[in-house]
C-alpha cells in the first residue's frame, strides 16, 4: 500500500514537472556552443568533481586541454547583459548564479577567476553560432526549448 502511494506521488511529481519548471525551478540560460555529448544531467551532477580534478592537472602538470576548463565554461555559458557585454557573477543572470543562488551554494571559483570571458574568448565562441545556417538553426532551437 505504502509502495503504491509512493509511486502515485512520484507519478504526480513527474507530471507536474513541466508546470514547476515554468515557475519554481531555476531558469538556466542556453549555452552558446555545441551541447555536452555527455548530457546536461551528467554535467549538472559532476561538474564540481571534474573542475577540481582537472584544475590540478593544469596547475601541477601544465595540461591545458581538459574537459573541466573554467575558461571554456565561462566563455560558452556567457550571458549577455544590457550593455551587450557578458555579465559577471554579481548578476543573478550569470549562468552559474541562476542555479547556485537557487540552491544557496556559494561559488568560490570567482574570487580569483574572472567570471566572464575576455573579448578574444567571447568572440571565439560566437562564430560557432553563425558559421552555417544549420548551426544557427540548431542554436535557435536549443534556446527556444
Amino acid at each position, binding site marked *: 500500500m505504502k509502495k503504491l502511494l509512493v509511486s502515485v506521488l512520484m507519478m504526480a511529481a513527474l507530471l507536474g514537472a513541466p508546470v514547476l519548471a515554468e515557475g519554481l525551478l531555476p531558469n538556466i540560460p542556453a549555452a552558446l556552443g555545441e551541447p555536452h555529448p*555527455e548530457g546536461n544531467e551528467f554535467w549538472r551532477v559532476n561538474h564540481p568533481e571534474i573542475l577540481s580534478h582537472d584544475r*590540478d*592537472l593544469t*596547475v601541477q602538470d601544465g595540461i591545458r*586541454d581538459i574537459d573541466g576548463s573554467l*575558461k571554456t565554461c565561462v566563455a560558452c555559458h556567457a550571458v549577455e547583459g544590457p550593455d551587450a557585454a557578458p555579465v559577471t557573477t554579481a548578476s543573478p543572470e550569470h549562468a552559474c548564479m541562476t542555479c547556485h543562488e537557487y540552491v544557496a551554494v556559494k561559488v568560490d571559483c570567482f*574570487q580569483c*577567476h574572472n567570471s566572464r570571458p*575576455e573579448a578574444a574568448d567571447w568572440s571565439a565562441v560566437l562564430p560557432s553560432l553563425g558559421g552555417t545556417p544549420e548551426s544557427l538553426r540548431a542554436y535557435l532551437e536549443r534556446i527556444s526549448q
Partner: protein
Amino acid sequence: MIIPTKEKGAEISRRDLLKKGGAMATVTLASGVTLMSFGGKAAADGLKPGARWGLLIDAGKCPEDCSACVSACSKEHGWEDNGLDTDPQWIRKVTLREKSSGRENSLPVMCQHCDEPPCVDVCPTGASFKREDGIVLVNKHTCIGCRYCMMACPFKARSFVHEQVTDQRTASPRGNGTVEGCNMCVHKIDRGDGTTACVEACQATGNNAMMFGDLNDPESEIAIAVATYASVELRADLGLNLGVRYQNI
C-alpha cells in the same frame, strides 16, 4: 581524453567519470547512436619533460630609464603597482651600486625560480611548489595567505593580494588573500609560445637584454649563451641554483 597521472584517492577519477558518462549516453540514446566524443587527443599536452626554463638577463644592455618588461608583465597578468606599499610587484627594476667605484647597474628582478626554493620549504599547505620543468608557482587553490613564503624568499619576489580583484586576466587568476609572484608566463609556455611577456617586450624595445629558454637543452640559445659567456646568480652564496641568471653585474 586525459588519463590523470596521479590518482587522488578522495576525488572521482576520470575513468569513473567515463564509465558514468558512457552509461548515461546509452540510456538517453536508445537508438544506438553514440554521441560520445571522449578521447582522440593525440598531441602531447602538458609540461615538457626534462626541461628547466630559465632567463638570462644582460644588465649591460638594460637602460636605467626603461621598464618595458615591468609594464608588459603588469599588462599580461593584470596586476597594478600604484606605488603603495601593499601593491603587488611581480617584477621590479632594481639599481645596484658598487660602493667602492660608484658603478651603477639597472636590472629587472623577479622570482628567480630556484632549483631548491625556500618558499616551497616553508609552505605549510604545499601551495608553493616547483613544477617538474623548474617553474616555481603558487597553487592559489591551496594557498591560505600565511605569507611564510614571502618571508623566506631572499629576493622579495612574492606579493600578497590585499584587495578584492575583479576582471582578472583569464590566464592569470588572482585573488584577495593569496600570495602571487612571477610564474614565468606559464600559460604562454604551456601554449608553446616559447617566450615570456617580459622577454617579448624587451626584444620589442631593441635592447635585447633578456633571453628565455630551456637551460637543460644544450642546443637552446640560452644554454649556449650560459655555457659561452660569464653569467652569475644573485646571492649565489645561498646555493639555491637559480633559473634566472645575470650578465655584466
